[in-house]
């Protein structure tokens, strides 16, 4: 039985005041949490209110945050990718091994980015051509890519990179570390892409109804494939940033990062079933995570609480986002 409302029944809904529509957005919730976290953080520790400290801490999370931005697009399009942390590790290990084997560092960087393309394309192939669910595929590739990194690099840590390559997080522009700048820049670019271009529009449409998008002549497979490849490329780039920051690389680089990336995206109010979400939300959520993590660390709160808080946040954020959207849809 169809349950279409006649226009009159929904008129209150459409004419809902703007402030209420804004308040009911998940991003607003994230922003409120951010403000609250800053206040609580400052109360917990007097060491907290230093911007340079926060920015420095932000570099530790910037790689995951940058990947989370692209992951936002992937999730809006109705897919998911749990393998980026493993892709970071494998591409960075490739880079390190190549460099160690005497490959010029520039070429080694190219190799790592190409490996990102290949890994992303493999994910895309499995999902789009073999039509396997992306969740399971990327759980498989997350294990496999990490394992390949382990086979490649063993458990040694590769270091001794040239000084110009090392320490990207200590280079600053206007007092802001480079990785954080890259994150901010990437946020702006992706926000523009998602919010104002046809590509962005079509990503939402695909996520809302893939079948309808295909019938409307949208090249669903091409767009999704591009998103998976972008995940690979961005993961590789972030693998390089992490390598530079740590001045070394090991197979366990970014291990467990998939949880944090998904957490950022969910916390930013992106709908797990696709079709809804914003870069702004992910941007705010990234800062929220930085504030919570650094705030707790600097306040000497044991790591056990941090794990608990992260897990709890993930669950609470999907529940609330889900509730907000299902209410809007009712």
């Amino acid at each position, binding site marked *: 039985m169809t349950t279409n409302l006649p226009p009159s029944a929904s008129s209150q809904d459409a004419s809902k005041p703007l402030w209420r529509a804004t308040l009911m957005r998940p991003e607003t919730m994230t922003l409120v949490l951010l403000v609250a976290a800053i206040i609580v953080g400052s109360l917990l520790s007097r060491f907290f209110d230093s911007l340079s400290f926060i920015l420095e801490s932000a570099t530790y999370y910037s790689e995951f945050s940058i990947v989370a931005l692209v992951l936002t697009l992937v999730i809006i399009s109705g897919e998911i990718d749990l393998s980026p942390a493993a892709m970071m590790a494998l591409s960075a290990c490739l880079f390190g091994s190549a460099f160690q084997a005497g490959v010029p560092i520039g070429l080694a960087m190219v190799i790592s980015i190409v490996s990102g393309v290949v890994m992303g394309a493999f994910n895309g192939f*499995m999902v789009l*051509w*073999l*039509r*396997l*669910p992306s*969740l*399971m*595929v990327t*759980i*498989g*590739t*997350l*294990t*496999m*890519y*990490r*394992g*390949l990194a*382990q*086979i490649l690099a*063993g*458990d040694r840590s590769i270091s001794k990179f040239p000084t110009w390559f090392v320490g990207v997080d200590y280079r600053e522009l206007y007092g802001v570390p480079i990785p954080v700048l890259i994150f901010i820049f990437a946020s702006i670019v992706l926000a523009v892409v998602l919010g104002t271009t046809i590509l962005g529009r079509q990503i939402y449409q695909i996520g809302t109804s*893939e*079948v309808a998008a*295909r019938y409307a002549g949208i090249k669903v497979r091409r767009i999704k494939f591009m998103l998976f490849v972008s995940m690979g490329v961005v993961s590789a780039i972030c693998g390089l940033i992490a390598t530079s920051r740590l001045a070394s690389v090991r*197979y366990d680089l970014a291990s467990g990062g998939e*949880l944090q990336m*998904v*957490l950022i995206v*969910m916390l930013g109010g992106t709908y*797990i*079933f696709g079709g809804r979400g914003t870069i702004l939300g992910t941007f705010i959520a990234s800062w929220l995570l930085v504030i919570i993590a650094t705030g707790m660390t600097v306040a000497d709160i*044991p*790591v*056990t*609480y*941090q*794990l*608990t*808080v*992260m*897990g*709890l946040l*993930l*669950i609470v954020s*999907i*529940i609330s986002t*889900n*509730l907000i959207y299902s209410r809007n849809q009712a």
Partner: protein
Amino acid sequence: MTIIALLRRREAGIIVMIVIFSLFVGVLQPRFLTSETLRIVLLAVPLVMIAAMGEMMVIVARHVDLSIGSILGFSSIVAGMLWRDHPGLPVLLGVVAALATGSALGLVNGLVVTIFRLPSIIVTLGTLSLYRGLLFFYSDSRQVDPQYIPRDIIGMSQTSPIFGIPWIIIVACVIALATYFFLDHTRLGRQIYAIGSNPTAAPLRGIRAAPVTILVFVISGALAGVAGVLYASRFGYVNPGITGVGFEFTVIAPIVIGGVSINGGVGSVGGTALGVLLLGAVSVALPVLGVSGFWQNAIYGAVILFALVIDRSVRQGGLKGLLARDAA
């Protein structure tokens, strides 16, 4: 397509794979083909076997539980701390506590998944982290040293009630058989398959999907709790930061290779058990062959992907159909 027909009977396929693999390893390292190997493999698998029985039910019901590693860790710590801090109490009480802990954590998973209708994979990714955090908190980040694990528990891996078969293997067999009986011969078991096969139609056949789904998560948690006790038995101590970490992949890989479809509704206890045995044999064989343990992760990942592709090609009626264009 005889290969496909063979793969349809996944159990037959896995038995063939186990035989081929064993012969292959045996040729390279003749010492592999001894009863000693069998003993080692059989000692290595009960943990995975028991947890896999629960996880398999979850997957048959078209869900997944990624938090079992943390549940295993939590249950074993709860039991271990009980043994350590209250040495006067009966040993069995620790086992009961582990079961109760596992069930309770599974219940939370089930409730969140069904009440809010959220994808279980994301929910359990969250509880994976949440439970591990709580576990650190509960244990005060302290491990339970071997001297506190009761000898009766350690003895489960060593002593045998019958035919020289250690207790833990018997426990695993009993649980596997019980699972088989439950899934294949009770109405409730068949309802799990029905829910996984067609969740929207289940209520129309009078199946109450929510409670059954919750029950499945509880069973999965409880079995992870049992596996937690066996962990203490086999490794002799439990550590909040180590016990059960990464266990979810160790469990999911043999399940998918055992022919349990991640699309729900399909899968047998026999296939799962054989999958566990196959991967158990692989993990025992790698060091015997002198292959670096680094390969294990990559192999597990590849196995999951391979099983996914096989599953898809069987459904599509052969490899030819695999690449056919989408008919959505």
